[in-house]
């Protein structure tokens, strides 16, 4: 009993509870939109959303894990920057630059033996993301240009630059207006397809999930350790909280800013690699003038996870789960646009986790006080 009480009173539980409450509020508002657009199927619709990936059996769960992979990665990217006082709104550009670099390496360096090719391509993607993150980092550290401005510019330069490079390199499949298949460098499945599948007659219909989710989980654990246990993380966080005090303490705050952005860029670049280093039926970069949504979705994922790497794992899974629920909602009488709106609303409200956290904190305090008063009056 004591242990449960201590668990309930701990800071970690408070944070998790606030995220859950924020999600419930989001679901409630989503339900209202369901009611307005199609009252007849609203309850069933909400059920479908709430059931999320589970509507599709084990394959559905696998799909959730698959779509969660880049979200966790960009969430880590944005969350890491948040923890160090920077707003990395440039995950989108870092992701696409990383993705292209990965595909380019996979297409042009096929002399590398098969089992290693995906790894080299993924590392190249991460390195390219690091460079793309370093640019706003350098501008911020040396010229005090706000990172949001530099990141937004880099998003567009990255997106148009990659479009240009795809069209002018051997990675272009002009028939489909997208990148070529890089099946030879696809992220290995590591047996996950043997777990996440549903039987269709005699055939096992496997989910798209691959080893990327394990890589993302490992990186989240690594980020948690770096931020909370190492002196390097201590320096970065100190700079995020108070640049002047960090300088006073002898920390090189310019270097810290640059490192923060490089790490954030690395994570987003790797996200791009994990997304697009896929088998023939998987995702390809299409040459359109749209910024990568996964990059931006890293922001709500980081907010919902309160920038804590472990929290980000769960929030990334949640956003993928609810999106998958929206996908199954198409079976009912809902327009795809309405589904997108509902999903957006739920994610949007989820990002209020921090607000809810503060509300809960003041609420529990009041409760404790009134209990104490009641106890004292009982004593009298």
């Amino acid at each position, binding site marked *: 009993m004591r242990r449960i009480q201590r668990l309930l009173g701990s800071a970690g539980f408070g944070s998790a509870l606030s995220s859950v409450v924020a999600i419930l509020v989001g679901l409630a508002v989503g339900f209202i939109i369901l009611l307005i657009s199609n009252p007849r199927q609203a309850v069933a619709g909400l059920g479908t959303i709430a059931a999320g990936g589970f509507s599709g059996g084990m394959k559905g769960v696998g799909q959730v894990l698959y779509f969660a992979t880049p979200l966790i990665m960009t969430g880590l990217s944005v969350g890491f920057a948040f923890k160090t006082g920077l707003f990395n709104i440039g995950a989108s550009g870092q992701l696409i630059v990383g993705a292209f670099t990965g595909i380019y390496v996979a297409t042009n360096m096929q002399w590398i033996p098969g089992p290693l090719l995906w790894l080299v391509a993924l590392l190249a993607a991460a390195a390219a993301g690091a460079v793309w993150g370093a640019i706003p980092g350098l501008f911020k550290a040396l010229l005090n240009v706000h990172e949001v401005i530099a990141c937004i510019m880099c998003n567009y330069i990255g997106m148009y630059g990659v479009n240009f490079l795809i069209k002018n390199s051997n990675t272009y499949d002009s028939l489909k207006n997208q990148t070529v298949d890089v099946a030879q460098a696809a992220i290995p499945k590591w047996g996950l397809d043997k777990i996440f599948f549903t039987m269709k007659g005699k055939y096992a219909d496997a989910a798209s999930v691959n080893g990327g989710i394990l890589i993302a989980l490992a990186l989240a654990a690594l980020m948690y350790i770096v931020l909370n246990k*190492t*002196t390097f993380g*201590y*320096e970065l966080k*100190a700079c995020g909280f108070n640049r002047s*005090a960090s300088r*006073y*303490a*002898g920390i090189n705050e310019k270097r810290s800013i640059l490192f923060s952005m490089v790490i954030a860029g690395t994570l987003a670049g790797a996200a791009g690699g994990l997304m697009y280093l896929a088998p023939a039926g998987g995702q390809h970069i299409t040459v359109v003038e749209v910024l990568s949504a996964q990059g931006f979705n890293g922001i709500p994922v980081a907010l919902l996870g309160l920038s804590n790497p472990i929290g980000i794992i769960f929030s990334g899974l949640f956003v993928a789960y609810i999106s998958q629920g929206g996908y199954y909602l198409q079976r009912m009488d809902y327009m795809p646009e309405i589904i997108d709106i509902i999903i957006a609303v739920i994610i949007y409200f989820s990002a209020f986790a921090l607000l809810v956290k503060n509300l809960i904190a003041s609420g529990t305090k009041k409760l404790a*006080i009134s209990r104490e008063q009641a106890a004292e009056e009982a004593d009298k």
Partner: protein
Amino acid sequence: MDTVIQMLHITKDFPGIRANDDVTLDLRRGEIHALLGENGAGKSTLMSVLFGLYRPEKGEILKNGKPVHIAGPNEANALGIGMVHQHFKLVHNFTVLENIVLGVEDIRGGVLHLAEARKKVVALSQQYGLMVEPDARISDVTVGMQQRVEILKMLYRENEILIFDEPTAVLTPQEIGELMKIMKNLTAEGKSILFITHKLNEIKQVADRCTVLRKGRCVGTVDVADTTKEQMSEMMVGRKVDFAIEKSPAHASGKAALRVENLNVRSKRHGKLLVNNVSFTVHKGEILCVAGIDGNGQSELVYALTGLAAAESGRIFLGGTEITLATIRERNNAGLAHIPEDRHKHGLVLDYPLAENIILKSYHKPAFRRKGFIRFDKMYQYTDKLIAAFDIRCGQGARTIARSMSGGNQQKAIVAREISEQPDVLIAVQPTRGLDVGAIEYIHKQLIAARDQGKAVLLVSLELDEVLNVSDRILVMYEGEMVADVDAQNVTAQELGLYMAGSRKGAAV
């Protein structure tokens, strides 16, 4: 005399700490009632309860004998309660007059009418002797005038009960004298004043009665006329306090610990020399004080010495090695410690726990780092040791977030960190600003103890008492130049005042 405000059995809790514990206080009409207590004793909390900023857990407030419920500053205002905060709440790009009427302005047909307000403000300022320029911008007027604007704001709203939260902390000695006069005038006109302070001289000068708080509890209320300063300080601290610091004569070894040669610092904004050709030496085993009125280049001098800002020219030596171009980390490692002027901006990472702040400068040393990881066990051990040794009071021990600690305890934490590093040279900039007598005594003793261990201390202070009591040798800085170099034994406050005002130049430094 009738009672206007009674605060009965007020209790207010913050996480891990009871800021007010069953505090009772009554304020009579026309009196100046001082509220005395150490940092973190709960003075500001109690006044914030009266002003409606905090809701007390227990207790009630009576105005003219009737219970009142004060839910916020607006209710407090309606009840005639006004407050001058320690940090003024003024709009800097508004004029004096606009600031005074802000919130109760006279608007007709969507247009602001200031003519009547102007008449009223001028009348009020003459009645109480509060000289202000109604059309000057707040950003252009002195701190003293800003404070008078805050007082006029209360009078304009016809407040009867005026709360002053440490009003003298930001003023020059002349301005303090004026403020005391103004407070007397106000009570003569029937206003009642609650005066938060920890300066006993000021209480003796103006207050009628004094309520003393210690660790959130009310120690008692005394008549100031019948109580000595020593008695009041004993009530406040809970033990006897030495006003005169016991100090053996300095044993300056004659060995230079910090040497500055022809140092110049130029302002980036207007190109003026803020530190002008300054040279001096601090020896091992002495406390050298840089005195002067705020803004005469002391801050810039310290920034150049500690590496926070670059000097334009000149050389700095620590021991025998030149550190003019060294980084901050290199200077720290070479044995330079720095108690900074602004404890929130430079001294602490407010969102870090106390323990993380204690190792702010030493986290990279083997004592606290192994293979890139922080040695948390060592960090907590070391912090607990300093908490005990330096009597740092904090609700949750080493894990207390620095932001939630009182100013005095934040300062103690910084002093603990800097002195415990065993530096060769300690630069202390206004180390006791805003602290109570107990903490001031403690920090002064620590500085002297450091000196007696053979360390060199460079003290930068604006407080004449501190300058005269603590230091062995005094330099006076005026408009970026050192205008005097005197022995602390052979100089009077009056002489120092003349040097500081620039009306006299002493022996060439």
